[in-house]
C-alpha cells in the first residue's frame, strides 16, 4: 500500500473540472486552491504499479497542465 501526493497544475479555468474528474477516482482525495490554478492530490494505492497507472490516468485528464510528485511512502500492511 502506498501513499503519494502531487501538486496538480491545471490549465487556466479548468481547475473545477479537473477537481471533479480526480475526485471521481476512488484512490484520490483532492483539494483545490482557492486562489490559484493548483490542486493538492493525495493518492492511496495498493502497489507501485497501481500508483504509476493512476498517475498516467490523472496526467492524461483534460485540463491537467502538469503534475509534480511531492510525497511518496510505502506502508506495510
Amino acid at each position, binding site marked *: 500500500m502506498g501513499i503519494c*501526493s502531487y*501538486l496538480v497544475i491545471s490549465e487556466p479555468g479548468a481547475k473545477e473540472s479537473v477537481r471533479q474528474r480526480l475526485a471521481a477516482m476512488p484512490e484520490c*482525495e483532492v483539494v*483545490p*486552491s*482557492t*486562489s490559484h490554478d493548483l490542486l493538492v492530490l*493525495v493518492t492511496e494505492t495498493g502497489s507501485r504499479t497501481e500508483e504509476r497507472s493512476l498517475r498516467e490516468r490523472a496526467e492524461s485528464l483534460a485540463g491537467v497542465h502538469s503534475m509534480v510528485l511531492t*510525497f511518496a511512502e510505502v*506502508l506495510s500492511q
Partner: protein
Amino acid sequence: MSVADRREFMKQAAAGAAAAAAAALTPGVAFGQDLTRLIGGLGLEWKKTPCRFCGVGCGLLVGLEGGRAVAVRGDPASPVSRGLACVKGYHSVQALYGRDRLTRALVRQGDRLVQVPMERALDLVARTLRETVEAHGKDSVAMYGSGQWTIPAGYVATKLFKGALGTNNIDASARLYTASAMTGAISSFGLDQPMGCYEDLDHADVFVLWGANMAETYPVLFSRMLERRQRSPSVRIVDLATRSTRTSYASDRALLFAPQSDLAVANAICHEIVARGRVNRSFVDRHVAFRRGSTGIGYGLRDDALVSEDEAEASFDDYVRFLADYSPERVERLSGVQAADIRWLASLYADPSLRVVSLWSTGINQHTRGSWANNLIYNIHLLTGKIASPGNGPLSLTDQPSACGAVREVGALAHALPRGTVADPEDREFAAGIWGVPSSRIDSRPGHHALSMFRALERGDIRFLWVQATNPMVTLPDLSRYRAAARKEGRFLVVSDVYPTPTTEVADVVLPSALWIEEEGLFGNGERRTQHFQQMVDAPGEAMGDTWQMIEVARRLGHQELFPWPRESHVADIWAEYTRFHDGPSHRMALLSELESRPGVMWPYVDGRETRWRYNTAHDPAADAGRGDFHFYGNPDGRARIWLRPFEPAPEVPDTEFPFWLETGRVLEHWSSGVLTRRIPTLHRAMPGAYVEINDHDARELGVQDGDRVRLVSRRGSIQITARLDHRGQPPRGHLFVPFFDESLLINELTSDAHCPVSGQPDYKKCAVRVERVARMTGT
C-alpha cells in the same frame, strides 16, 4: 500507532508536503478549509497563536497531542499571514523541547551555578532587591526586559518598578531594535505606532525598502509583496540597501547607498519633488507644519541622557532653502546613488497615480541618526500626501514578537508609562489612580535607557539588575565592556530565561522561564494587532512564566495589594486593568473574550471596528472629520511635522587602520541571538554558524578564498570567523556583513555603542574594522 492511524498520518503528511510545495512555488497560495480538514485529524487538537519570533505576528495553529506540541501549520484565518509561515515558524514548537532546557532555578556559589528550589531562588531575589534599595536607594535597582515579553509581563514589570518601587529604571531590548521608530513617530506625529497596516501591501503599486532585507528577515510579508506583484505585473519593488541580498535579487531595482547616506538620499528625493513642483500643496497646507531641531547632537558615547527634541517653527520656504544642500548630483557624490536614480525614485513617490509604501526596519532604526532617518521617510510621504490611506504610507517593521505590544504600548521604557510619560504630571496622576498608589511615588525623572543602564551597572549606580526574556551578553554592542560591568564585584544579576546563554553564565540567580505557549499571553505586533494565545502545554520542571515570577517577587516585597490576582485568572485580570489606560477612541483595545476567539484585533477598536488607517478620518474614530480627510491628532495643532534634518556623518568611518565598514544583521534561519532557533535541529543544520561576507575583489586583494578563516579586528575587539564569498549577500567593496545569531562568534565584541542620542538605539550597521587572513580552509 495503529496501521489505520499511521495511514491517516501519512496522508496528512502527504497533503502537507504538497501544500508546502505549492507555497514555495506560488507565495500566497491558499487552499481554504478543505485542506485544513485533510491535514487535520489524527486526534490532534489545533490551537491558534501568534508566532514566537519576529514582530510580523504570523498566525499559527499548533497541533497538540498527549500534552506536547507536535505540529505547526499556518493559520488560514490569520489576516497577517493567511495560512503561511516562514521556516522558523513551521519549526517553532521544537524550540520548546531542546535538551538543555532550564527547568530548575540556579544560584551562584563561587564559580558555579547550583540548583535550588524555585521558591528559595525567588526569596533570594526579593531579599537582595530589598536590601539593595535599603543600602543604595531605589534607583540602584533595574529591570531589563524585552519585546519577547508578553503584554502582561511588560505591564507587570512597569507597575512593579514604576508604581511599587518608585524607580523608572526599566527598559527593554526593544530599545536595540525599534526605539528610533518610536521616537521618529512621536516627533513627526505626536504619537507612537504605525498609522498603516499590512493590508497596505495588497494595495500599493510601488514598494520602497529602506535597508530592509525582507526576503530573509520578514519572509511572509515579502511573499505578500511578491504575490501583489504577481497579480499586478506593473507593481515595482525597489530595494535601497548597503549590500545586495536575496531581497535585491527579487526586486525590480536595487540601489546601493553608502552607509549613513540614507539621510541625504531621503532629503534629495524631497529636493527633487520640490524642484519639480510636485509637492501636494493642498495636503501640506492643511495637514503639515515645518519644524527645525537641534543639530550636532553627538552619538551618546559620553552622555547617558537622551536628547529631548527642541522644536523651532519653520516655514515651507525655510524647508526649500534647507533642501538646497541636497541636489541629486551632490547626494550622488556622497551616497553613490546616481542622480538619475534619485530623480526616478522621486518621480515614483510624486506620481499621483501610484500608491507607494515605504518599509524599513533595523537598517534605518539602528542608526546614530535613527530618529531623524524615520522623520525623513515620513517627510517624503507628507510632502506628497501619500500617507495613512490604503496602499500609501510609511510602514516601520518590528523585530520582536511583542516589541510594540509589551514594550511600546505598555510603557516598559525608561521615560514612559502605559499612557504618556513619567515627565507629565497628568500622566503620573492617571497611572497612580489606576494602580492605587500615591502619584508622588512615580518619579518624574526618566530612568536609564538600555545602554545607560549597563553603564550605570559599570559605575555601580545600579547594583541589582533583573534581565528577563533577552540575552544582552550576545546582543549589546561593545560587548566586552558590558560583560565586564556585569561581572563587577558588588553587582547582583538575576536572569530569567529558557536556556543557558552567555547572559545566564554571568548571573547570580537564574530563574527558569515558561516559553510562549507554556503560559497564557498576548503579543502586540507591528501593525497594532493584539493577539492572544492560551496555555497549551505545561512548562517543564519548575519553569514559571515571567509575569508570575515578578508577581511572586512583588508579593515577597509586601506589594500584595498591587498584585492581588489569582494565578488561574491573572492574565485576564491584568488585561482588564491594563486596558483602562487606553480606554479612549485613539487606543481602545478589544475585550479578552474577543481576542480569545479571533486571530488578533487591531486597535483602536471602537464599536466593533478595527482601525486600519489611523489619522484618516474615514477610518480612525479618534480623527475629527471636521478637519477634512486627515487629522494628525497626536500633535496639539492637528498637523504632522516635516522636519529639517540634515545629513550628519557616522561617528566612526573606515580609515587606513580599519578600512572596512562592518554591518551586522539576521539571516532567514535564525532569530535574534539564536537562543531558540539554534535549538531547532533543522534550522541549526541549515545555518550552523556565523560567517563574514566579503566582496570578491576585496577578498582577492586580501588573499582570502571562500571558507578561509579570517580575523576581524575593530578598536574594541576581534574574532576569528569563516569568510564567505558569493554567499547569500554580496557586500560592495569595503563592506562586510556578519550575522549576530551565533553565541560562539560574538560579533558584538567589535561593534560600537554609539547610538542615536534621541532614541538610545545603537548603530549595529556601521563601525570600522580590518580583515586579517588567518588560515586557508585546506590548512595552508
